């Protein structure tokens, strides 16, 4: 199975970018049968059931990066595993890296991972995205489509 997962908290402004993108993606594109598109929220290590038997993962999320709000970044599995030997030191870390590493040790998990990230502008208690980040939804949807095309 190929999973397209939207990560983030829909109650916390731009943190809801991932869920917003995947919901829109499902409405806009014809999703092939071997692809499942899911708004997973912020499940932490409970991402593992999704990663366990995935051949390929496409994740949409907000990312912390030294760049202007609305900047989009693309990462692959090697990027995500790069900082493996660090512990979970941030509450803002949704467990993507831990889940991937744990499954590596179990000899499971996806071969390929694409993470489509946006730098948030405002992470406050609201169900709305900022304009800067909302404008990036189509860009992220195209990135998902491109990633699926490569699969």
């Amino acid at each position, binding site marked *: 199975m190929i999973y397209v997962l939207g*990560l983030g*908290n*829909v*109650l*916390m402004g731009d*943190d809801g970018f991932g869920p917003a993108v995947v919901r829109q993606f499902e409405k806009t594109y014809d999703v092939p049968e071997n692809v499942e598109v*899911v708004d*997973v*929220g*912020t*499940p*932490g*290590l*409970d991402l*593992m*059931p999704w990663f*366990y038997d995935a051949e390929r993962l496409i994740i949409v*999320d*907000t*990312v*912390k*990066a*030294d760049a202007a709000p609305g*900047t*989009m*970044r*693309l*990462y692959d599995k*090697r*990027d*995500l595993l*790069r*900082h*493996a*030997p*660090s*512990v*979970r*030191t*941030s*509450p*803002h*870390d*949704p467990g993507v890296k*831990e889940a991937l*590493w*744990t*499954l*590596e*040790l*179990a*000899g*499971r998990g996806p071969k390929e991972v694409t*993470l489509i*990230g946006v730098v948030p502008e405002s*992470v406050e*208690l*609201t169900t709305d995205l900022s304009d800067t980040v909302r404008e990036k939804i189509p*860009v992220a949807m195209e*990135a998902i489509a491109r990633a699926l095309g490569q699969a």
Partner: protein
Amino acid sequence: MSTHITVDPITRIEGHLRIDVEVDGGVVKKAWSSGQMFRGIERILIGRDPREAWLFTQRFCGVCTTVHAITSVRAVENALNLEIPPNAQYIRNLIVAAHAMHDHIVHFYQLSALDWVDVVSALKADVVKTAALATSLSDWPGNSIKEFQAVKDRLAGFVAKGQLGIFTNGYWGHPAMKLPPEVNLLAVTHYLQALDYQRRVNKVVSILGGKTPNIQNLAVGGVANAINLDNDATLNMAKLYEVKELLDSAKQFIEQVYFVDLCAVGALYADWLKYGAGVTNYLAVPDLPTDTKGTQFDLPGGTIFNGDLAKVTKITSFGDPYFQKNVSESIAHSWYDGDWQRHPYEEDTVPKYTSYDPNKDYSWIKSPRFDGHPMQVGPLAQVLVGFAGGHELTVKWAKKTLETAGKIAGATLTPAILHGTLGRHAARMIRCGVISDLADKHWNLLAENIGKGDTRIFNQPVFPKGEIQGFGFHEAPRGTLSHWVVIENGKIKNYQAVVPSTWNAGPRDAKDQPGPYEASLVGNPIADTDKPLEVLRTVHSFDPCIACAIHTLDVEGKELSRVRAL
């Protein structure tokens, strides 16, 4: 001279928790627990339709989604005095049961086992001896020489590449790690196997809930699972049998692996039985209702004070005034405006951050109290309330656990040893066993009821003019969760969630009574002040989850990784 240690953040939990301890002569003398994230998320509900509240509450926390959804619909149903059909009750119960089993397995293996299990020591294990030990304890088919060798080889590969850091704080080789290499290899192997079984039981939640995390099948008044045994799109025979198969396989793992590991690891750390009791007032609410009103339950609830197992006051219904009247929250040492202790219906959540000052305000968490007392919540509370009240399944699983662990430890273990750090782990497993039996029962109740031709799933809610209020509770994996709602003319006027980790992680109250985390750390040994593994052991034993908020992924870390602009 005393040493002050700050552990910030506590790792392998959800959310941001800071613990401070004062250590003197290698022993913790005082402790402070501080929630480092503002949690005023209920405010987003004000003015909304109470029928939709559960869709929002399950986004409070990304891990505890199901529990906030269930509790929210129960709160609104309580306000409306609305019963739900038997099928709806059973379907909710199966979701509750499967979620709890998933959560308890993940907690024991993925989130806390490595406080006790030294991963690196497993490399020194003799695989033949490991297999012999394992088969002497259990019939589990995953205990083969081949399996242990494969895990040992993979571990060796990881260690060679220096990649094990993510699994602990680097506390392997710590003087408080006591297990022989063979037991460590056994536990690491089961740690990896548990990934498959927690996933299977989680699938039950997604089949019945439509999706997990964030189930979609609830409604105020019942559930939205249309039942038609001959229709592929609805809840039918094939789906019911898939649920049964998944529950059965999880049950086998719980009985043959989790139970055995808990007894063995617990017994080999018997010297830890004396640590971590802390607050021995306990609160649990009844759950898995078997009637449409919520007056009969398969899981027991009640209170115990001062560890006195001879005296239990039972909580017996969804509307029980004993629970309703006695819950309050204090903000004496929290970063909120005011200095009150109020009933949840009367509360507000107005942040007023000052600075971290253990003598004044030091946490974003409020301090819930029951009749003014701090209470410990969680599986230990439910197991003790059940045991003391003669709840048959709890007594069965508790006795079996104490006997088996006692045999390995060469000691007679009584329920009194459950007050403490190891007791919380044991109780979680005992509860998981009880629930695995009850999941089976509730599957049968559902199948039989549908078999009788009853396909009702929903009773329509009707909101009156004027103001009403209600509360819902649920014995979640981490303990007693309650939601309190005030509804005016069909819209939410006030909403408060009193969550399990608030009961346990809350700061001192106006009378300076410490919360359960704070009290449980006092008296813990600290072998190495630079590596306070013992603090993690005790705090992790509560299964902390205080996320309820936000995250942003930090892929790039300190050094810039390879990135491409879009």
